């Protein structure tokens, strides 16, 4: 005997099924930003960076010009009390890094860049990894990624005039007054005449946790052993577009270059989540170690070119804060990395376009 045939339901029930499927699809598309996302996204920020100058394939969307660097980091005994990270207990950690100039042009002239970058990758013997991306400015241009995006968008040429619209910039500065402070720094601060005597600042705040479980908010900086010498603005005008790389090679041929890594500790009430506000210079500091660079090489075939120096790649014992700019940098660098690696993969490259 065969079992009784089940009673079929009304075909009209296909309607709620279709509605459930469509609702899920719409929700997924909304979460994925296909529509309705009025927020600034990492993609919109990278689009703006690409529009800041002719974007060449296979190169970074920002800080495109760079030099690979190689060296070591040796911690001080005091550093081991700050964080359980192996970087602070291992006698010496190999360092791969990159000096960079801002903008999306891998051939940008060194003598026109007011800002320089230093990115580092430290891999310890416990398999942990620390990447950092520092800059020569003492504080970031804006409090939030949205304000930074507004600034960069206002700098783009207006399609009608071919020049940035001053009214747009005025509106951005009125809405985000902290940017004026950065512009004032950028106009007045003397530019060091070498990468070797440039101080690099982490700018964003991080948290160090030690073996006792104590956690402190810090900002770090790399302070050069090489004495500061300001570049002569007149000489800078006629300097070679690659004078920084030539100077670095000359100095490294004479011997290693060193920077002290200094941790600055926040006190209660300090703006931990606002990288546009430097903490007072009177805050306690600890010398955490010394970075020694021994070698530099062009990035074109160098080991630093296809690394994403994501500042949220951190070893155990070091964590990010809720600084929104720190998190945005991680998101934006990832989009830039994905785009340029894809261009390399699909062969969409002009040979020799990368210096």
């Amino acid at each position, binding site marked *: 005997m065969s079992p009784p045939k*089940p009673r079929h*339901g009304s075909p009209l029930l296909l309607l709620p099924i279709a509605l459930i499927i469509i609702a*899920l*699809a719409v929700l*997924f598309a909304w979460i994925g930003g296909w529509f309705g996302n009025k927020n600034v996204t990492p993609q919109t920020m990278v689009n703006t960076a690409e529009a800041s100058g002719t974007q060449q394939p296979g190169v970074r969307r920002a800080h495109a010009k760079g030099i690979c660097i190689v060296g070591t980091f040796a911690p001080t005994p005091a550093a081991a009390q700050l964080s359980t990270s192996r970087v602070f207990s291992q006698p010496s950690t190999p360092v791969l890094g990159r000096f960079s100039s801002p903008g999306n042009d891998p051939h940008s002239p060194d003598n026109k860049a007011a800002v320089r970058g230093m990115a580092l990758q430290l891999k310890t013997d416990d398999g942990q990894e620390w990447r950092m991306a520092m800059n020569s400015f003492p504080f970031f241009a804006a409090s939030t990624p949205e304000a930074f995006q507004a600034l960069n968008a206002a700098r783009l040429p207006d399609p009608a005039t071919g020049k940035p619209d001053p009214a747009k910039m005025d509106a951005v500065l009125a809405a985000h007054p902290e940017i004026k402070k950065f512009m004032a720094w950028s106009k007045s601060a003397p530019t060091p005449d070498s990468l070797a005597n440039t101080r690099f600042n982490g700018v964003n705040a991080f948290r160090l946790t030690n073996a006792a479980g104590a956690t402190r908010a810090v900002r770090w900086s790399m302070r050069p052993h090489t004495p500061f010498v300001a570049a002569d603005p007149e000489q800078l005008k006629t300097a070679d577009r690659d004078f920084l790389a030539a100077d670095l090679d000359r100095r490294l041929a004479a011997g290693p270059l060193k920077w002290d890594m200094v941790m600055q500790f926040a006190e209660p009430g300090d703006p931990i989540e606002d990288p546009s506000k430097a903490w007072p210079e009177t805050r306690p500091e600890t010398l955490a170690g010394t970075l020694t660079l021994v070698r530099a090489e062009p990035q074109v075939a160098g080991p630093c070119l296809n690394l994403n120096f994501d500042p949220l790649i951190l070893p155990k014992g070091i964590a990010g804060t809720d600084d929104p700019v720190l998190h945005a940098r991680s998101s934006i660098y990832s989009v830039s990395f994905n785009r340029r690696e894809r261009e390399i993969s699909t062969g969409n490259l002009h040979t020799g376009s990368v210096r």
Partner: protein
Amino acid sequence: MNRPRHFNLLARVLHWSMAVAILAMLFVGAAMVVSLRHREFLLDLHRPLGLAILLLAIVRLVNRLLNAPPPLPADLPRIQVWAATASHWALYALMLAMPLIGWAMLSAGGYPIVLFDGVNLPAILPHSPAIYGFLRPLHGVLAYVLFFTILAHLGAALYHAWVRRDEVFGQMAKGD
């Protein structure tokens, strides 16, 4: 060989728990790539959840190969039998491939593969921009393929439960 009337308990537990995990994974993935503020938090969820799905998918595949599934209704049109079989194997392929591609892609990108704070997985591919530049978009495209296959699977399950009112939905929803 006698075919069972229902999927066995392990298959049912894995099916429903992985349904939740995979849907969560797809939404986390879609959100993290467009987020300025929550990428780190979402990525820290995405990697261990992806490894868990890979391990569960292996257990599930072995269980599926060792235990015959309950039969489809004898009167099911052949095109629907074909669609059911093809989509089930596509789901198996994708739930195994997606975590592996994710792991391979991070390896090729030169990234540390962080499972938990202080615990990293080994790289399964050498650092290679060309491979990363291929695998990263593939991971995104296949995520959409997986999502649409799951929607089709859900639609078919509800069709069996509400319109055909046959035994198919109960085979995965209930035990013997």
